[in-house]
């Protein structure tokens, strides 16, 4: 009985704000073609996908998130291998460096990053956001991949090298298939952390390249169509919730910190 009560209390607390958003997103709040205010309909969602600005915002978000995931995996995998398999001068200092970048709040670095990236011509482009999100995603990737590589016995590497395979061949033909689940988990957390971040995403998109989060802010105005805002919000929640389901047994890995 207490178990049911406890679970219900938790469910209500977590889902209440989302319930409101879902209800509003299906309620027509402003006149639209073929729908009158107050009606329950899909009109808000149709309007979201019909609006070229919102469509391009969704596309922008997906672009920089995917570029970020690819960058983090490509750069993080060799680093994770080095940390998992060798000890070397300064390895702990490197771990400390990535720990510091992992926890530094974006607002602290937003000013110099904006100035630096505007000199490099990386403002208003998805590439700029993808690069800057590596600041916190690369450490996460390195730690996750390192823990997966550690769980492969060292003898595995040695056998492959004894068989005469070169180092790059070992990486692509043997290591990557062995730790494929790890790559998936790392990609999941990079995706999520990049998807929800707003401080860098706002400061680096001044006139163009707006992501979903900023497009929603821009929908508030003199007459806000709140139903449509909520429809856009619900759309932005879909990838995250789908991924929670897929990676439900690995949720703790994204918040591990190594020292």
């Amino acid at each position, binding site marked *: 009985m207490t*178990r049911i009560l406890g*679970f219900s209390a*938790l*469910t209500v607390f*977590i889902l*209440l*704000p*989302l*319930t*409101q*958003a879902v209800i*509003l997103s299906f309620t027509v709040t402003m006149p639209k073609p073929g729908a009158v205010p107050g009606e329950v309909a899909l009109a808000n969602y149709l309007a979201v996908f019909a609006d070229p600005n919102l469509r391009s915002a969704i596309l922008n978000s997906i672009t920089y998130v995917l570029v970020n995931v690819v960058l983090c995996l490509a*750069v993080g995998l*060799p680093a994770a291998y*080095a*940390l998992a*398999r*060798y*000890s*070397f001068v300064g390895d702990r200092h*490197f771990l400390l460096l990535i720990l*510091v970048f992992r*926890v*530094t*709040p974006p*607002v*602290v*670095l937003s*000013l*110099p*990053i904006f*100035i*630096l990236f505007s000199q490099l011509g990386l403002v208003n482009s998805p590439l700029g956001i993808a690069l800057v999100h*590596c*600041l916190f995603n690369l450490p996460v990737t*390195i730690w996750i991949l390192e823990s997966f590589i550690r769980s492969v016995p060292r003898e595995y590497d040695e056998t492959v090298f004894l068989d005469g395979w070169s180092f790059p061949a070992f990486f692509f033909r043997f290591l990557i298939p062995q730790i494929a689940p790890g790559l998936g988990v790392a990609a999941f957390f990079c995706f*999520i952390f990049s*998807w929800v*971040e*707003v*401080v860098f995403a706002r400061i680096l998109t001044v006139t163009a390249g707006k992501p979903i*989060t900023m497009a*929603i*802010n821009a929908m508030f105005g003199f007459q806000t169509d709140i139903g449509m*805002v*909520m429809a856009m*919000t619900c759309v*932005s*929640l879909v990838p*995250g*919730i789908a*991924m*929670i389901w897929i990676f*439900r*047994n690995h*949720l*703790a890995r994204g*918040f591990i*910190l190594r*020292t």
Partner: protein
Amino acid sequence: MPPHDNRAWLLLIPALALLALVGVLPLLAVVNYGFHDIFSLADIHWVGVEWFADILGSDRFLASLGRSLLFAALVLTIQIPLGLLIARFLIGCGRGAVWGLMLCAIPLVVPWNMIPMLWLGLIDKQTGLLGPAVLASGFDYKETAIHTWILLLTVDTWHWIGLVVVLAYAGLSAIPHAYRQAAAIDGASRWDVFRHIELPRITRALGIVLLLRFVDSFMIYTEAFAINAGGPHDATRFLSIELGEEIKGFSYGQAAARATLYFLIVLTAVWAFVVAMRQKEPA
């Protein structure tokens, strides 16, 4: 012990190059700007430690620092026990636990600027689901400081409780069942089991929670700005909100000095975490 080989650095080169561009360079730049007065990028004057002295000597800074510390302290005292409680509760749920974990993780995947929006929609007096309750209780987050604080703490707890639950659950579920059985045979109370068996085995997870939650709540920006932008009457003017104002007001030199100070605070927290964690490690 893994073999010692300094050639491993070659594998770190791509990672280091990337971090140098997006992390180290901006960090050096912000420290450098902190010692200058910046009208435009072409018109920069050296002012030494003037900004730092100004900020550290101002009552406004000390007040904001106090508010941020109080907020972080309240966040930790609410969320860590609550998260542990939920995690222990989920451990008892057996196979249903994964549903609880997924539920708690949902707020973690909501874009940050939508979180205040969702909550403000929820308590809207005309259209919110909690609107009638808000009207009946006289809750007014715009004008009454204590109500703004309550709302902010509730929103932050909603957002981050999943982090505490997920990490605490991972730590608790790694404890072999035999430990709890042995304790039960000895007639240990629930509190004894928690104090002597569970707590020592989740200190690492708790350390991580403590660091992540401290830094993020101490530097809370997105939610606090969206909910009341520091008001009413500066009652929720936290450190990061002052920094945001200076950046928006183009006083780059002062903002950089402030960012440097904040970075030093974060660095101190990280250093304390690392020292504590390395003491815990088996030698």
